[in-house]
């Protein structure tokens, strides 16, 4: 017998063991891709979406909350129903619908849940809750959808929607996933970081058919979701609702600010929409409709619409002139209608009268003094230097660039400087006679309603403002709101110059805006009429009240409604009364505004 053969066999056994162990080492130790594939097989990452933060008005009235929506889910494998008629009755579903839904569910998966009845109402849910136990394989899944109890302040609050591809790319920390909802506009957009909370993640084990097999490692790697932070808005819901009522059927904006804090009390964009239209699954259907709507309900006029400031700008001109020493309260100019049209009033007027009567020729002449200071003998150069200097002063009033309100897409308006005119006319080819329209707030000058309201706040505060904002506190603390909203901004005009201006504005009402006068409340205001080449002029009014202890500063724009003393001044006056007194003593005026027939 060949004695080497047992040894050969033993060698083969050892060789086999080495081969097997080597291959095992390769797949178990040297290659970790199998571990990843195993995790992909059996471990499911389930994201726990937190409740989004709520939004309250300044008096703790709810503006935005989360409405639970219930979906009735079915697991075909476990589902049986004996009495179909009773079932259909109970769950409020047609028999045909039931069959279609059940078959769709079966087709999707035998063991995974599919929706049977979507978006069951609260009442229906309460009714069927007790019967659920009789039907194995049925359960209710809760989603939450943004809801707005008052259907108010749609543009200020904004909306949430599915995150876009571009936003996903910008999200470098990879917090968001495809299909996540994010704030897209208004406060929802700006305070997304606070409102969203923090997502939690649960790792679940599933078997080969996708059936839940409990948490992975007893939940060791799970993280809890954290609910979003609640926000208290600066909005006064009553005032907001009242403003919306007054503006219904009209186009325009109302912005009311508390001058001492920069808090926006009301921000009305008309026409608007019911924010509930963009909540949850309705977003997909309604967003397109709203963007195509000719009245542009999604256009947030208070911060996006831009108009020439008109006569109201005369107040700014006066203040800059006083500060620069070009005017004194006693400076007079004749009402020379050869220069620019005016309306009848005592002439010549001093500065007080010029503001009170809104004298156009006064500012035509005054502005020339402000611009052409004879620093150069060349009138072109002199105008250029003067204009840029003036522009700098004007921009300190929060004009010409966005105020930085806590909303997206705020427009900055336009205060023209030499660069703009050089572009239009060429260098050294324009002088005062080219730009004189600026003297009375016309021409290439554009401001937003928000900037106008802020202007009113500056007049009220005698020379300073807090950048207007919509949020008072986040998570119960005002320390959480951005620093810039707590930082006072000075406009570079001494407070004493405002005294006369305030007086003139208070007196201006009688004559230009008699309708705005309230018996016990002294309103300082100024009418404006923004020229509109395409149609009737826009009616503008800015005001603050009470004059001696201002609580509210307001700008009202009513488009295509003519002279500012009618539509805008009436609306502003009613708003002021509503805010300061809480009720309306002039039903006739309210009627007049609600009827909306301002042109005659």
């Amino acid at each position, binding site marked *: *017998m060949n004695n080497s053969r047992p040894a050969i*066999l033993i060698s083969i056994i050892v060789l086999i*063991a080495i081969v*097997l162990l080597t291959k*095992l080492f390769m*797949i*178990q130790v040297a290659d970790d891709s199998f571990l990843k594939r195993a995790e992909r*097989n059996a471990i499911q990452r389930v994201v726990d979406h937190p409740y989004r933060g709520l939004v309250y008005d300044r008096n703790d009235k709810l503006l935005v909350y989360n409405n639970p929506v219930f979906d009735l889910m079915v697991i075909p494998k476990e589902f049986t129903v004996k009495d179909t008629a009773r079932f259909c009755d109970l769950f409020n579903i047609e028999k045909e619908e039931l069959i279609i839904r059940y078959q769709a569910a079966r087709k999707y998966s035998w063991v995974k849940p599919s929706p049977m009845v979507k978006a069951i109402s609260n009442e229906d849910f309460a009714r069927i809750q007790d019967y659920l136990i009789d039907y194995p394989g049925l359960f209710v899944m809760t989603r939450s959808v943004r809801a707005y109890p008052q259907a108010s302040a749609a543009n200020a609050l904004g909306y949430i929607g599915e995150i876009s591809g571009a936003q996903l790319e910008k999200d470098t920390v990879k917090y968001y996933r495809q299909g996540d909802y994010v704030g897209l506009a208004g406060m929802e957009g700006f305070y997304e970081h606070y409102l969203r909370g923090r997502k939690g993640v649960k790792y679940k084990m599933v078997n080969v058919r996708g059936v839940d*097999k409990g948490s992975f490692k007893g939940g060791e790697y799970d993280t809890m979701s954290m609910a979003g932070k609640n926000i208290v808005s600066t909005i006064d819901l009553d005032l907001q609702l009242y403003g919306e009522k007054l503006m219904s059927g009209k186009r325009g904006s109302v912005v009311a600010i508390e001058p001492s804090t920069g808090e926006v009390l009301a921000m009305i964009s008309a026409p608007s929409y019911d924010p509930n239209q963009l909540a949850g699954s309705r977003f997909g259907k309604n967003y397109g409709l709203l963007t195509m709507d000719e009245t542009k309900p999604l256009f947030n006029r208070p911060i996006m619409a831009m108009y020439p400031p008109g006569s109201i700008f005369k107040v700014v001109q006066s203040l800059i002139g006083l500060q620069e020493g070009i005017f004194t309260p006693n400076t007079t100019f004749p009402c020379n209608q050869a220069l620019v049209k005016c309306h009848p009033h005592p002439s010549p007027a001093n500065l007080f009268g010029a503001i009170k009567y809104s004298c156009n020729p006064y500012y035509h002449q005054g502005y020339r003094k402000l611009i052409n200071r004879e620093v150069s003998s060349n009138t072109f150069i002199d105008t250029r230097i003067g204009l840029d200097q003036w522009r700098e002063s004007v921009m300190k009033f929060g004009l010409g660039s966005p105020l930085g309100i806590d909303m997206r897409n705020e427009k900055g308006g336009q205060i023209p400087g030499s660069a703009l005119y050089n572009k239009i006319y060429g260098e050294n080819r324009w002088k005062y006679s080219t730009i004189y329209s600026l003297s009375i707030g016309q021409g290439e000058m554009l401001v937003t309603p928000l900037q106008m309201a802020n202007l009113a706040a500056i007049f009220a505060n005698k020379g300073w403002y807090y950048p207007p904002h919509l949020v008072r506190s986040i998570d119960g603390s005002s320390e959480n709101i951005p620093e810039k909203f707590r930082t006072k901004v000075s406009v570079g005009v001494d407070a004493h110059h405002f005294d006369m201006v305030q007086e003139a504005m208070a007196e201006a009402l009688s004559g230009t805006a008699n309708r705005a006068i309230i018996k016990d409340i002294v309103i300082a205001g100024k009418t404006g009429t923004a020229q509109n080449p395409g149609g009737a002029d826009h009616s503008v009014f800015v005001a603050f009240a009470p004059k001696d202890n201002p609580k509210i500063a307001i700008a009202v724009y009513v488009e295509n409604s003519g002279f500012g003393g009618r539509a805008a001044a009436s609306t502003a006056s009613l708003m002021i009364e509503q805010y300061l007194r809480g009720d309306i003593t002039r039903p006739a005026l309210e009627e007049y505004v609600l009827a909306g027939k301002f042109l005659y």
Partner: protein
Amino acid sequence: MRQDDLYISRIDWITILIYSILVIIGWFNIYAAVYDEQAAKSIFDFSINSGKQLVWIGTAILLITVIMVADYRLFDNLSLILYGFFLLILLLTPFIGKEINGQRAWFEIGAFRLQPAEFAKFATALALAKFMEAPTFDLSKGKYQLRALAIIGLPIALIMLQPDTGTAMVYSAFGIMLFREGMPQRYYVFAIGFVAISLLSLGIENNLYLAAAVMALMVLLILAGKKTWQRIVTFAVMGLVIIAYSYSLDYVVSKLPDHQQNRIMVLFNPDLDPLGVGWNVTQSKIAIGSGGFMGKGYLEGTQTKFDFVPEQHTDFIFCTLGEEFGWIGSLIVIILFGALLVRLIYLSERQKTRFSRIYGYCVVSILLFHFTINIAMTIGLFPVVGIPLPFFSYGGSSLWSFTILLFIFIKLDSHRIQLLGRNG
């Protein structure tokens, strides 16, 4: 009493120890393979496979007792009768067996199911030992070679009628025993060469590379020795035959039905069809591969107990081990199997009779084949063949047949002194 003490001391306890460890590890793995954390049942629960396996283990102990107390001459005397009996059963199986997955391989007796082909292994081993024990039986002679092959071939043919290719293949393992008993080496060289060339020609996409390699090898062989015309012609013809074979094999495979082609191609690249034919191998590799060096810990695996690996408690039981005990666990089990096989070779070699030695090598052959093919298939080194891992896999037929196979040898070994006297 002294006699009994002596008998017990003659039993090879090392083999029994390794056997016991493997059975116990297997039992724990069967529990892990079906363990469900959400509805955790005791390992002893008879409604799950680990509980049932405990019954099989208990009855296996009964079988062991019967074998150990029986007269050692019984196996010698009954060998041909047992062989005949099982041939008859195998003949009947395709007609009266219960059809499962298109095979009639199982007998159903009440609640029990038995697989005759499993038990026929030890009967065939006994028959081989009986036929080959004669001093005149010389495997270098063609007549005896044919006789041995016939004893092995009969059950193979009958099992193919069921048809159960996997189990039938196991009988080819007796070739290992024949190798030890003097079957000429050239057969094995030829067989290994044949398999190697088949695998290479299927595995290498372009047969030109293989042809070039074969020609180069032949040129080297010619240059290495004497350059006589005879040698040159021999190697040249050999080379051409190999190349012709590899091309014709590819041709034959390309003519096979698609699903059979897939089975062959997936062997070389399971990723070709990870959800279809490659599913078993892919999932099995994922399960084992995810175990890492130390494993996920007992009952912490996810791939087997959540049914990603099919047949996880029978043919793919090694996956559970690989996943939960990692490379270290695999190492221990492979060492245990290796040690058992080497021990059995040692025991076989110390037998005083050809009968015992041949039977011993039959045991080595069967166990080595099962162990190698089963583990190799779970890690993608061999195509999926439905054969169990000895002592590990769930199931009465498998555990019982391996136990009987092994313990008959332990019994024979414990009586090696007496057996010597009888044969002279």
